[in-house]
């Protein structure tokens, strides 16, 4: 029984890791056409996330794989249910992934512009779609007694789902802007900082609306009580602190604040859910839980042992790779690899 909860928490942690890391990749990719005024600057921007984006994306693949492994019914219901949304998410991730590698391999400006556009859309759609998906998971979707999703795609685009998408999207762009300001020099840095300060208000507004919406669209108060209220307020606090840090030019701390905001948003969603994993708005008895959706205790235990062995290595060498590339990048073609 305990392993069901353990894996619920581990999957939450995997999504937190994903949003904190890939979140700034998305943000940087979205800002690419706006902050990159010439090819040199665009190359510089891409190079800030060049070494990291692929390893960051694996957090999402691991979260999905862990969902399949620990809660096969959750994986089956969610992935078949959110079919169209996931299709667009896939299209975005596919194009973006290839774009980073292909973009600078030809000198034709049309070639580079095309791939820069795909980097933009490939970075813009995922946080939006994932925000919509998660918002719908916590507000509840039509799931029948056989654990089948019976809604469509358009009903996911309800007001709460869209707010969730906009909130996640705007926080990711802010997160990316601050990351960029920590990784580049000179004029590009100044513009990234200015953009970050301008992005703060929209992120706060969408975030606050999303939190307030949560009190109406979900059962957070009745279901999670005081814990739910506290955890829902934390992202607002970290966003406010983020604004304060930027005012004080403490950009490293500002980055930590957006990271924590993303962590707390994910935590909030999982607190609302627990012990459910998919909420049915047709009948609460038809919701999927960490018990009726899970694999056997044997499988959960086996996976836990494997994770305890390998996760520390992952954290170590991913941390090491960030350490290797800790220096700021100059907008100097001789120093840029991609």
């Amino acid at each position, binding site marked *: 029984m305990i392993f069901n909860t353990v894996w619920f928490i581990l999957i939450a942690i995997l999504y937190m890791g994903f949003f904190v890391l890939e979140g700034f990749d998305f943000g940087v990719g979205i800002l*690419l056409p*706006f902050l990159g*005024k*010439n*090819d*040199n600057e*665009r*190359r510089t921007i891409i*190079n800030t996330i*060049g*070494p990291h984006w*692929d*390893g960051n994306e*694996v957090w999402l*693949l*691991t979260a999905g*794989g862990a969902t*399949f*492994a620990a809660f*096969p019914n959750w*994986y*089956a*219901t*969610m*992935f*078949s*249910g959110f*079919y169209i949304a*996931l299709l667009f998410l*896939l299209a975005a*991730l*596919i194009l973006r*992934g*290839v774009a*980073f*590698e292909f973009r600078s*391999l030809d*000198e034709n*400006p049309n070639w580079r*512009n095309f791939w820069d*556009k795909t980097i*933009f859309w490939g970075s813009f759609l995922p946080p939006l779609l994932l925000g919509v998906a998660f918002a719908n998971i916590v507000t509840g979707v039509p799931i029948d007694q056989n654990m*089948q999703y*019976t809604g469509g795609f358009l009903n996911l685009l309800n007001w709460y789902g869209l707010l969730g998408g906009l909130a996640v999207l705007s926080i990711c762009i802010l997160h990316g802007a601050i990351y960029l300001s920590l990784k580049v020099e000179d004029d590009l840095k100044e513009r990234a900082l200015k953009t970050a300060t301008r992005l703060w208000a929209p992120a706060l507004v969408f975030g606050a609306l999303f939190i307030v919406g949560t009190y109406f669209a979900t059962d957070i108060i009745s279901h999670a009580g005081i814990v739910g209220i506290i955890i829902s307020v934390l992202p607002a606090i970290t966003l406010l602190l983020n604004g304060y840090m930027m005012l004080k030019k403490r950009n490293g701390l500002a980055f930590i604040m957006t990271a924590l905001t993303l962590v707390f948003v994910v935590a909030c969603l999982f607190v609302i859910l627990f012990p459910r994993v998919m909420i049915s708005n047709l009948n609460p008895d038809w919701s999927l839980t960490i018990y009726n959706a899970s*694999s*056997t205790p*044997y*499988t959960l235990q*086996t*996976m836990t042992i*494997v*994770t305890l062995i*390998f*996760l520390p290595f*992952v954290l170590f060498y*991913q941390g090491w*790779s960030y350490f*290797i590339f800790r220096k700021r990048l100059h907008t100097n073609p001789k120093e*840029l*690899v991609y």
Partner: protein
Amino acid sequence: MDALSLARFQFAITTIYHFFFVPLTLGLVILVAIMETLYVLKKDETYKRMTKFWGKLFLINFAMGVVTGIVQEFQFGMNWSEYSRFMGDIFGAPLAIEALLAFFLESTLLGVWIFGWDKINPKLHLLAIWLVAFGSNISALWILIANSFMQQPVGYALNHGRAEMTNFFEVITNPHVLTQFPHTVLSGLTTGAFFVVGISAYHMLRNNEVDFFKRSFRMAVILAVISSILVAIMGHIQGQHMVQVQPMKMAAAEALWETEKGADFSIIALIDSSNRKNLFELSLPNVLSFMANNDFNSEVKGINELQKTYESKYGAGNYIPPIELAFWTFRIMVGIGGLLILISILALYLDYKNQLVISRWLLAILPFAIVLPYIANTAGWLLTEMGRLPWIVFGLFRVDQGASPNVSANMLFLSLLVYIILYTILIGATIYLFKKIAIAGPAATDKGVITLDDVKQTA
């Protein structure tokens, strides 16, 4: 077409497309790692240039492998939700381990390798590419463990309408994976080897960067000989194992309708599936019995008898996979496999005798041989997956039980359209880049990326 057929078609084309890129990744990364090893040991700049040139081709291919792989992970849940519910307890664990162990390792260390040439010491940089090689090849192990359960279920019990894992070690040491994994890794090495051999031959014929490409050629052709011979040996061992474990697949691959002692091996045949017989066969007497059981007079089970056996075991139904497809994919795979052995031995011999310069005809042909492993790889996967039909998990779960019930034919048309459009654009871009860089040679990678001045902003 109905939803099930569309789902099957989509899974087939996305998997085949993914497996265009995977074998080259598996094999080429090892060659690149060997080149960088030689660079670090001998401090010879040519090996560094080789690492960067072949490495750049590797990176283009790797990117395609990664993104097409994401589709695969999502597709189980999206299109095969009932299969996922049935198999999740077994499949999920190897897939999660694949992500945690292999994907993280190869993706993170590859980022270090690409961007860290001047930032970490050369030995550490070398370690990075070897870890990428390890990560990629070990990822094959975990996905093949999952596939092997589908071919030969072990370490499980049927409970609550699903397969539940009862013994993790049995699952990961499945006898099927013990042959399937080496066979797959070796097919990757063969693909990578012929890729390097073919491109090197192109330049050697034109006397371009001769020292560079002779070294690449020699290294790759030795690997080609070794891997093409070993992949055939592993294939044979796997075939013999499959005679025991999935006799219907092997009978189908031979279009052997009737059980026979001293069965002949048909090189070609005119198959009449609807009447369950062959109208014509060109065959080698008793060879099939020998291949299957090491005994020229042994009995090999035929399709008709197996169909009856399965009907009494599993109930009424059609347990016969597509015979023509199994028959011809097997011959394509094995035929090309044999051809690759011959070509690689000939190429190694002529290279060793320094007669490749005289045998310009072989140099001219070798670039075209690059596609041969691709065709063989595809044929092999078609055989092993479709030869298992109607089962998706052999003996336990049929393909018509597995599809997502809430995904309509219209949704499938949409996803098919999206994948086909995307994949067509991407294969076009990939081939364009491959050709450009392969034909340009190391001149393309020596200079690195060129920054454009005053790019028009159209975002």
